[in-house]
């Protein structure tokens, strides 16, 4: 009885933790107090790691260890501050629960400080850092079907951490690059192979140690094999038996003759060719599976389903939308609709995809005569060529569809949705529809053959009102990627400054990026922004993860949203509005401004040309009283300081102003402040050159 009660309580807690309203799904956000990993400065973590390394038995040269801890701490700092990492939400909480189970079965892990966070990425992957942070991508959790598989991947990553593979690999690479000892005078191919081979050995070792850890638990051991099978196709999203049909995405198939549905196939053997790649960091997956299989203890238990798989799959919807991978979004949404057919969120996600695809085609029609391929970046092309047949199938259909037809079908789909459903946000859904109508009026309405829309206008008063209220102007179509240079009197006195950055490089050094100096200077840069804003009577909110405090989780999520907005703007066509616009409007209301600025400094030091040094010395020797100055000039390096400014209007999703100010001087405090003040002055008061 007691056990039964405990099970009931556990299940209900689990239910509370992982249940979501999938009808009105909200993208996941971080919660609670921000962990120290995010708030502690990278320089402090580096110093602490160096102190720990002093007592480490690992025989790594001190300089190499210094470089490793410096680079890895700052690299992970950049990752943690990029707004894509989630904590204290259902997925990472679930990982923590799994870890507790693994820890219970492996006393060796009792004193290990290992933390799990979610990386909002569609890629099927997980990775570990030497600092004990293990990141699981959303795409991985959406793909792995059981908790047991997750546990195995976790054990594998923990093994990397325990064995300090990152540090060993870094040290090995440094030795190879030093061109001394064993690898002296070897060609680059040999060196590259050596590095890859060393890395592959680590993977095999992590598999082996991970399996040992895993086999101490109560999970189904065979799940190690299925986990590796899933990772084998890391480039593919989760599998689902989705059969695409235009009706499923709300298309009115009676309007036009639609392209024939084709069913492309995917030759996995052709795509999966890492067996031949000796330079890969990972060994061949078949070899790994065989190796794990040979060490597998024969014990069969019923695997536990992955409790957060559905949430992760819902997450993929907005993550794929962010990358403007509309066919993927439709695939994921249709797959989820099989279990959640009434989900408003999924219906709207599909509409957003159709909208995005249609607007991209309209934009392409203006820019490149309708050639969509020019709009799709290379990464996405690669994605499509390695997509499962179901996604290729959707993509093929939408690509074959004429841009005008797609536009009309999208308008009909939106109108149908608006009249027969209660949208989650009617105003924004209508705004998307107005965008489609605007494209229609600007590009397709002169076509006399196109009568479907006019028929709807003539028969439906409500639609006619909406249609007639939209003006055919082209401004919107090109506005985000076109800075027209007009900077007259923005009159902005309330501004969000998003993640200012200060990066200092010294090109005279082998390792050019100056991590510690950059972080220190970034602090001064923050102060300078606030000082100058104050002197210009501007209210400025700096939203940055670089110096975020423990209790600022709201700001952390706002930063994540703004990054998501900027990312989507890069991938989607400029005439599309942000897929999470309602969240953006909420942010604008809370901060009282819809203007964000991206500010940053790149300070570069590099050597002077020999000819320049000699010329200066000769010239000042002739005018000899100036020789000391000539000597100073000859021995000092050259400097360039770049200060960039981007001003973005969140309401209209328009780039208002962009500028890169180049100072041919060292990026000292005065230079940075001078340029910054000038840029803020322009934002506040217009350009008065």
């Amino acid at each position, binding site marked *: 009885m007691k056990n039964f009660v405990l099970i009931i309580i556990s299940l209900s807690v689990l239910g509370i933790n992982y249940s979501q309203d999938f009808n009105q799904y909200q993208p996941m956000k971080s919660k609670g107090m921000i962990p120290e990993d995010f708030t502690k400065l990278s320089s402090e973590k580096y110093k602490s790691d160096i102190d720990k390394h002093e007592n480490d038995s690992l025989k790594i040269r001190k300089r190499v260890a210094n470089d490793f801890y410096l680079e890895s701490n700052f690299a992970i700092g950049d990752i943690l501050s990029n707004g894509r990492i989630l904590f204290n939400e259902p997925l990472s909480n679930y990982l923590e629960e799994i870890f507790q189970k693994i820890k219970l079965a492996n006393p060796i892990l009792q004193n290990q400080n290992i933390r799990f966070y979610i990386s909002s990425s569609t890629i099927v992957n997980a990775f570990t850092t030497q600092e004990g942070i293990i990141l699981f991508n959303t795409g991985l959790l959406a793909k792995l079907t059981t908790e047991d598989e997750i546990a195995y991947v976790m054990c594998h990553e923990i093994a990397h951490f325990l064995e300090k593979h990152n540090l060993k690999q870094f040290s090995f690479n440094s030795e190879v690059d030093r061109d001394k000892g064993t690898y002296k005078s070897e060609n680059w191919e040999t060196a590259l192979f050596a590095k890859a081979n060393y890395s592959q050995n680590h993977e095999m070792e992590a598999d082996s140690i991970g399996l040992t850890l895993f086999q101490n638990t109560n999970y189904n051991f065979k799940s190690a094999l299925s986990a590796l099978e899933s990772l084998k196709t890391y480039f593919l999203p989760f599998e689902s038996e989705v059969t695409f049909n235009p009706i499923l995405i709300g298309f009115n198939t009676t309007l036009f003759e639609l392209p024939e549905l084709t069913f492309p196939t995917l030759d996995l053997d052709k795509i999966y060719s890492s067996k031949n790649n000796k330079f890969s960091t990972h060994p061949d997956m078949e070899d790994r599976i065989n190796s794990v299989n040979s060490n597998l203890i024969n014990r069969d238990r019923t695997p536990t389903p992955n409790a957060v798989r559905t949430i992760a799959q819902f997450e993929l919807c907005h993550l794929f939308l962010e990358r403007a991978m509309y066919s993927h979004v439709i695939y994921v949404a249709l797959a989820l609709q099989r279990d959640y057919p009434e989900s408003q969120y999924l219906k709207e996600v599909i509409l957003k995809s159709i909208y995005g695809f249609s607007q991209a085609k309209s934009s392409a029609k203006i820019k490149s005569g309708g050639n969509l391929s020019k709009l799709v970046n290379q990464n996405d092309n690669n994605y499509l060529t390695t997509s499962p047949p179901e996604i290729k199938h959707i993509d093929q259909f939408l690509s074959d569809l004429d841009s005008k037809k797609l536009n009309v079908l999208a308008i009909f789909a939106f109108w149908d949705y608006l009249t027969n459903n209660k949208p989650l946000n009617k105003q924004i859904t209508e705004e998307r529809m107005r965008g489609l109508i605007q494209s229609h009026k600007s590009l397709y309405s002169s076509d006399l053959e196109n009568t479907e829309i006019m028929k709807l206008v003539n028969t439906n008063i409500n639609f006619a009102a909406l249609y007639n209220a939209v003006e055919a102007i082209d401004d919107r179509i090109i506005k985000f990627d076109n800075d027209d240079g007009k900077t007259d009197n923005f009159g902005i006195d309330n501004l969000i400054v998003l993640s200012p950055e200060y990066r200092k490089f010294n090109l005279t050094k082998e390792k050019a990026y100056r991590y510690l100096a950059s972080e220190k200077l970034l602090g001064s840069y923050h102060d300078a922004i606030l*000082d*100058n804003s104050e*002197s*210009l009577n501007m209210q400025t909110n700096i939203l940055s993860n670089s110096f975020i405090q423990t209790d600022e989780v709201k700001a952390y999520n706002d930063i994540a949203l703004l990054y998501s907005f900027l990312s989507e703007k890069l991938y989607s066509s400029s005439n599309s509005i942000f897929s999470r616009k309602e969240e953006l409007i909420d942010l604008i209301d809370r901060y009282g401004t819809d203007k964000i600025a991206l500010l940053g400094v790149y300070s570069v030091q590099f050597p002077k040309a020999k000819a320049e040094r000699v010329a200066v010395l000769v010239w000042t020797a002739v*005018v*000899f*009283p*100036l020789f000391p*100055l000539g000597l100073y000039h000859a021995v000092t390096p050259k400097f360039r*300081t770049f200060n960039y400014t981007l001003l973005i209007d969140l309401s209209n999703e328009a780039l208002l102003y962009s500028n890169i*100010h*180049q*100072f*041919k*001087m060292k990026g*000292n*405090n*005065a*230079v940075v*402040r*001078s*340029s910054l*003040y*000038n840029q803020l*002055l322009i934002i*506040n*008061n217009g350009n*008065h*050159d």
Partner: protein
Amino acid sequence: MEIMTNLLKIIYCLLVSSFLTAQTPGFEGKRFSLGVEAQGMPLTGALLVNENFSDFNMRYGFTADIVLSKFVSVGIKFQRSEDLAFLTKYTQSSFTPVEYSQNLDSYPNFIQSFESAANYSYSGFGAYIKLFSKEFGSIAPLGHFWAFEYQLGTINVTDDGRFYDYNRSDIYSKMTHTLVVGTGIQKIYFNRLMTGLSFNLGLNTTGLKSFIFPGYQYGGMDFIQHIERKSFSDNFLTVRFSLAWLL
């Protein structure tokens, strides 16, 4: 006096206009600076007027500067220098060097080798405009600039006791115009302290005349020619250091 009055009027207008503008360019909005400067250049004096190589011909000054726009600042200054003008080949007899030079033909055997000197001073008011280099990325008052300057000054030469053998101090005095073109760099430290280094080419009209028309109107008064040439060489090529405080 009329020039001084006009300069004061200009300063007044600049101050008023800057106070009337609420948000202004400048270094973090700081547009005014008051400073001191020193300039000199040893080599030109040695080459042009037989001075020692080590004679730096130091001139010091006070400046007031105001940033007008993102790339322009203007200012006024007062400069002064005090030096010794060394006059060779003139007698210390009952003739003053002036008289001697005027009667050189009558007393050809009177020539002796000696050195005489007089106090040489220059005082001048100037106005300048600095154009900050866009190509260099400068934003007034920071960075690389080109400067154009006009100075109205007075040269005064007085006896230091080695020139006349009786109590007569005034030797020579003349108002002179100088046009200066310079290029340099200004830096700012502690958000207030401005330093500047510039190289300047100056053309002093009085001195220039003495080079173009050697002997003209001097009637053998070579020392006057020497004085005027010195005023030219003091301005011709100079290095200028400045310190200013941003207000």
